């Protein structure tokens, strides 16, 4: 009599090998961390010390945070607007049903990929070299970084449109541009609006740190406070960021519900 087994012998061996392989990879990764145990042992004290210095936060500093905060919101908004303007043509190139030929399709896709694989902080470093430190570099970084995300979702929206409406416009003898304007644009408008609001929300969060590399906004004040070891100011700035991100998330969820 043979006992029932869930796996054949070969399957069990394979599963065991898989688990061993995973364990080896994890041990290898752990050894690469170069953990200094004396620092780890010390970390609870360090953390308590840190939070003890941060709280209570320095409320008097609020006045000086207001301007950089407005700048952060401007960077996010301007960057998003710029990204949307640039994304529209790219999206039409990268959507299978509106592109001209395979070369323009490939161009659209490559632009998207490059934009998305480089983080906004790295884009900020690049733009700082070109236009100098400040919020302009931040807005450009946000724009270039968002481009890939926005145009990818725009392109998907264009690919999902209803062919019937487009053909109806074509049947009236409309030119290529008129088909675009009256057959496609009305159909994709809600998607475009939703994506734009969603990305704006993400960009608010990303803009809060751009100042750490010198690209303007509240991150710059945060960096100054950290370098100056003024932890009660750091605590206040973190609270402000928490509030702004929460408000923008609620606002964006509410706006998206309204447009879609």
């Amino acid at each position, binding site marked *: 009599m043979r006992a029932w087994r869930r796996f054949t012998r070969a399957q069990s061996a394979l599963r065991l090998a898989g688990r061993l392989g995973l364990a080896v990879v994890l041990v290898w*990764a752990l050894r*690469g*961390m170069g953990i200094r145990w004396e620092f780890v042992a010390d970390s609870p004290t360090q953390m308590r010390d840190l939070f003890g210095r941060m709280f209570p936060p320095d409320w008097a500093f609020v006045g000086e945070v207001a301007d950089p905060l407005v700048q952060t919101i401007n960077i996010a908004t301007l960057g998003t607007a710029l990204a949307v303007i640039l994304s529209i043509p790219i999206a039409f190139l990268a959507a299978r049903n509106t592109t001209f030929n395979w070369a323009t399709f490939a161009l659209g896709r490559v632009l998207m990929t490059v934009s998305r694989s480089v983080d906004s902080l790295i884009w900020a470093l690049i733009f700082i070299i070109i236009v100098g430190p400040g919020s302009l570099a931040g807005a450009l970084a946000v724009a270039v970084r968002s481009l890939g995300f926005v145009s990818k979702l725009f392109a998907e929206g264009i690919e999902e449109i209803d062919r019937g409406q487009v053909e109806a416009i074509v049947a009236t003898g409309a030119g290529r541009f008129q088909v675009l304007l009256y057959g496609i644009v009305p159909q994709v408008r809600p998607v475009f609006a939703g994506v734009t609001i969603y990305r704006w929300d993400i960009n608010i969060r990303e803009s809060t740190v751009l100042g750490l590399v010198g690209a303007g906004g509240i991150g710059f004040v945060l960096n100054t406070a950290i370098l100056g070891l003024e932890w009660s100011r750091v605590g206040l700035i973190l609270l402000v960021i928490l509030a702004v991100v929460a408000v923008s998330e609620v606002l964006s969820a509410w706006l998206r519900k309204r447009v879609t």
Partner: protein
Amino acid sequence: MDAARLARGLSRAGIVFGGAFPPNFERWPLVVEGVVESIQMATLSTALGVLIGIPVAVLAARNFAPPPAYAAGRGLITLARTFHEIIVAILFVKAVGFGPFAGMLTLTWNSIGFFSKLLAEQIENIDRGQVEAIRATGASRDQVLLFGVLPQVLPRIVGLTIYQWDVHLRQSTIIGIVGAGGIGTTLYNSFARYDYDFSLAILLVIVAIVLLGEGVSAWARTRIQ
């Protein structure tokens, strides 16, 4: 912002890009070292993140957690999602010192916000029937979770884990800017030293890794579905 500044910027852009081309791969051992460190950080933090993330997700699923636990789970997730990974990295660097360990902890913390949130939503959307069937056999709460819920969300856990690894790999390329290890440290140093041709080489490697990671992750996810 005015025309003169733009013109100056353009001429400077010329110099920068002139300096960056052709990309300089001469110091490739440094790049390899950074990349390996990034991969190690991403892998370990994904494993840890999943271990911590699963219980947090159960806490944050409305249909299983009692209200106070639900509030705690949701609160933790919101807190973990609010701060950009760079800010978290600064705090961890302060706590455990410079290096990849701080970066790994940052990414793990980040997992709680991302992985637990998506998994909690998945748990909320499971088929009640199967859970009821297990409960009807007289199973305890843990047994219901193990036999009624887990089989339903397991494919999703695997998919999310792979996706999480891909996201961590991408984030590990930047948290090095504040000293938390990985290829980001190498990149930031090259910018600071005006080694633009080396910077471009690193950027190309980063783009390649991100694409490769995205490809591997997409391939693995279609295979398990």
